[in-house]
């Protein structure tokens, strides 16, 4: 057992008493010391360890609640709202994937069902305008029933077969709702416009509580926050209950769970229904703020983001849901702007160098070498081929003018940039295969090539670069920490 505050420490041998045979006290206590950490960090960690987890969730809740007080920038609040929605969705998916271990690839269909359900019950589409406090429970229960129905045929399925059936269901949902403006019952009845097809359902009502309309972005942010905290509290309590523990046993080893007497089928059904209910709830808030629903929002790309958030944060942990959503969604938005993306990019590179390149002599040598190589190459190119340095850097100011003299910026960078990009990919792969001093020396031209590709090709197309960077970050993070940021390492029984 690893040492910690609860493990009794090994007693030191008292003066004069001869050491016990076969026992090395120092070695025996090394686990405890290692886990405690050394110095200040170790002390801080062990103190934080004692804080119960709900305190962290509360701290997060307070921090999030203060956000609109600090800024009136609509974009920031909107991103905050989106992040909260993703947190809610990941929370629901966490029950299905993280607790019960069921791979549900159609989860986003429940989200869409909830959104469309709200839209159908509170918009001019069918002329129904129910009060919000009536619509939300109806939609949530309906989505839970849908989750239950989807789970019914899935009881016999395990692993990837379950994934496939749920994927089918998700695609079925999108297809039906995209073509739902011409639905007729097997061609026997006339066509009905049920879901608005690709035109969706516009003019959905805002939330309407006791006659009081909720219209501003800030108000929706708070609504989403309150919903999230409420669901978080509920899931936290469930995690600690019998059902939660039963789910975890189902995840770790379904066969053993069944032999231990867990009602495996019932657990699967309840997990699906609970996840679906949370997704339905999220859908209603989404529909109310956007005042329009379209089927394209509930397709595989959204599902991918929810999964990435969940796994990156650490499936099965609640803190991971919060952290994952913050990291992924905020990165996606921050990387949209070329200026911010440049700062993030260079900071990541410099940060990785500082963190991984030891000793300091090598770090200084690599940085100096890169800068020197850059100026040298720039001078050579400027002397021989004038069109090679005519371009403009993307950022202005001091950094921009520095970059202009350091990086080669051709006037028409597209083809050269593309070739350099492919070259850079291979260079980086080669770099990971080298070792020792050779690797550190090879870093220098690679770094310069990276700056070249960034300035010439990547920063010019920020929307594409954003996704390339996300892809690279995913690969690197999952390789470095497969259990997710806050997850714990598991051994999976296949």
């Amino acid at each position, binding site marked *: 057992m690893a040492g910690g505050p609860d493990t009794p420490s090994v007693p030191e041998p008292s003066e004069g008493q001869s050491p016990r045979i076969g026992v090395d006290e120092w070695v025996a206590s090394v686990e405890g010391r290692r886990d405690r950490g050394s110095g200040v960090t170790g002390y801080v960690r062990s103190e934080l360890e004692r804080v119960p987890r709900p305190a962290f969730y509360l701290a997060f809740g307070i921090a999030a609640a203060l956000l609109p007080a600090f800024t009136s920038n609509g974009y920031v609040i909107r991103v905050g709202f989106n992040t909260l929605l993703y947190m809610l969705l990941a929370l629901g998916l966490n029950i299905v994937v993280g607790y019960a271990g069921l791979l549900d690839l159609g989860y986003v269909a429940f989200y869409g069902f909830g959104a469309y359900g709200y839209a159908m019950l509170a918009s001019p589409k069918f002329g129904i305008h129910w009060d919000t406090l009536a619509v939300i429970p109806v939609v949530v229960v309906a989505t839970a029933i849908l989750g239950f129905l989807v789970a019914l045929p899935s009881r016999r399925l395990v692993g990837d077969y379950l994934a496939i059936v749920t994927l089918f269901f998700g695609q079925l949902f999108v297809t039906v709702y995209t073509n739902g403006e011409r639905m007729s019952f097997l061609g026997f009845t006339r066509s009905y416009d049920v879901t608005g097809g690709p035109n969706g359902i516009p003019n959905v009502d805002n939330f309407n509580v006791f006659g009081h309309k909720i219209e501003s972005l800030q108000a929706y942010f708070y609504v989403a926050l309150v919903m999230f905290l409420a669901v978080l509290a509920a899931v936290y309590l469930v995690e600690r209950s019998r059902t939660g523990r039963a789910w975890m046993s189902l995840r770790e080893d379904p066969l053993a769970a069944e032999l231990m007497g867990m009602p495996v089928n019932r657990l699967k059904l309840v997990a699906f229904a609970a996840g679906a209910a949370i997704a339905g709830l999220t859908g209603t808030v989404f529909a109310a703020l956007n005042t329009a629903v379209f089927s394209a929002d509930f397709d595989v790309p959204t599902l991918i983001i929810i999964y990435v958030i969940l796994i990156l944060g650490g499936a099965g942990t609640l803190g991971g849901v919060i952290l994952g959503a913050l990291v992924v969604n905020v990165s996606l938005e921050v990387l949209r702007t070329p200026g911010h993306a440049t700062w993030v990019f260079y900071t990541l590179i410099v940060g990785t160098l500082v963190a991984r390149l030891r000793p300091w002599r090598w770090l200084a040598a690599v940085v100096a070498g890169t800068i020197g190589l850059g100026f040298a190459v720039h001078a050579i190119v400027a002397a021989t081929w004038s069109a090679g340095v005519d371009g403009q850097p993307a950022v202005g100011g001091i950094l921009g003018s520095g970059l202009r003299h350091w990086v080669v910026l051709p006037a028409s960078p*597209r083809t050269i940039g593309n070739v350099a990009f492919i070259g850079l990919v291979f260079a980086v792969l080669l770099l990971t295969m080298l070792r020792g001093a050779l690797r550190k020396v090879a870093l220098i031209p690679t770094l310069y090539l990276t700056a070249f590709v960034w300035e010439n090709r990547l920063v010019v197309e920020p929307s594409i670069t954003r996704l390339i960077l996300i892809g690279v970050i995913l690969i690197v993070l999952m390789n470095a920490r497969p259990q997710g940021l806050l997850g714990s390492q598991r051994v999976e029984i296949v």
Partner: protein
Amino acid sequence: MLRRVGLVAIVAAAAALAIVAAAAARPASPAAATVSCSKPVQIGMMAPITGPVSSIGDDQLHWAEFAVSRWNANKAHKVKLKLVQGDTQLQASLASTVAQSFASNGSLMGVIGPAGSDEVQAAGPILMKAGLAFASGSATRVSLTGGAFKGYFFRDVPNDGVQGPTDATYMTSKLGVKAGDTVMVVDDQESYSTGLADIVGPALTAKGITVDRESVSQKATDFSALVAKITSSVKVVFLPFQVASEAQLFAQQAQAQGKTAVIFGSDGTFDSKNFTAGNYVSFFAPDVTTIVADSSTVAAFNQQYPGGTSPFGAPNYVLVQMYGVAATAACKAGGGKLSRTSLRKAFATVSLPVTILGTPIKFNAAGDLAGAEFHIFKIVNGKYQTVQ
């Protein structure tokens, strides 16, 4: 366990930092806030730059960037422009987020886009509330203009209400489709396509023509199964597709299966390089690549952005020009200062007699293209010939 705690502590610290940083962010710009015209005027561009419809959005973006660089390179233009891109992936929720980021950007004065009619529906209220004009080169749903977005939303392509009846009338009057014949209408499940199909279909049915309404996903790569359903009573197949090469594939597979029905494409398929196997295509302007006056422009574009183009691109070039003209006028009237309202009002009155599209571009009161009419082109030996 301990490291997990440490990570959460780090996150809390980062969140606190983020809050402080966000606190330093500028407040949202009201519509009347002014910027100085001596710095480049920022115009936002909302398009599906990545994602399944990226062939359209990427092209729109490139034409807009090309227009901005040419505008800025022209020494006669005192007011410079700068394009800020926002990738919406044709999803309405992302469009709302991007619209919010534009709205909160105090230096951003006008918007080009969104590209999809759904996105206009979703993002419109946000842009309106921020006082931004938004002009699209591809959102053609009829209900978008003259309604809630009046005065804010413009488009320099005609809406489906102009194209649909023109195409339907041509089929009945010139192509000899009579009552009792069948016309197959195939849409690609996107709102541009279904909107057009929903107008052409009933227009034909009203004349006693049977309409066989089919639908394929835009992601489909094989139409041979659908082509097999073209019977001998089908006189015309109408393809309001968004992607020209898909219409091309459909036409080629129809030919391979020996079908003799006339293949009629809409303006989404108007691409003299990619859609050459069909029989007819409609467009509201002459072919950009055949207008002699434009050949140098097109050549310069192809040099900078090789790989081909689409009919949705050139209208965005025109929109940038219009914003440039509007910004110049508003700056002059505002004494060197520009606000969103002044730009919007100037934009509504811009009239370009000569454009790369070969027709003059001007907005009517509802924000639609004034005097829009559709031309029909016949494809002969892979070349487009104007027939109406």
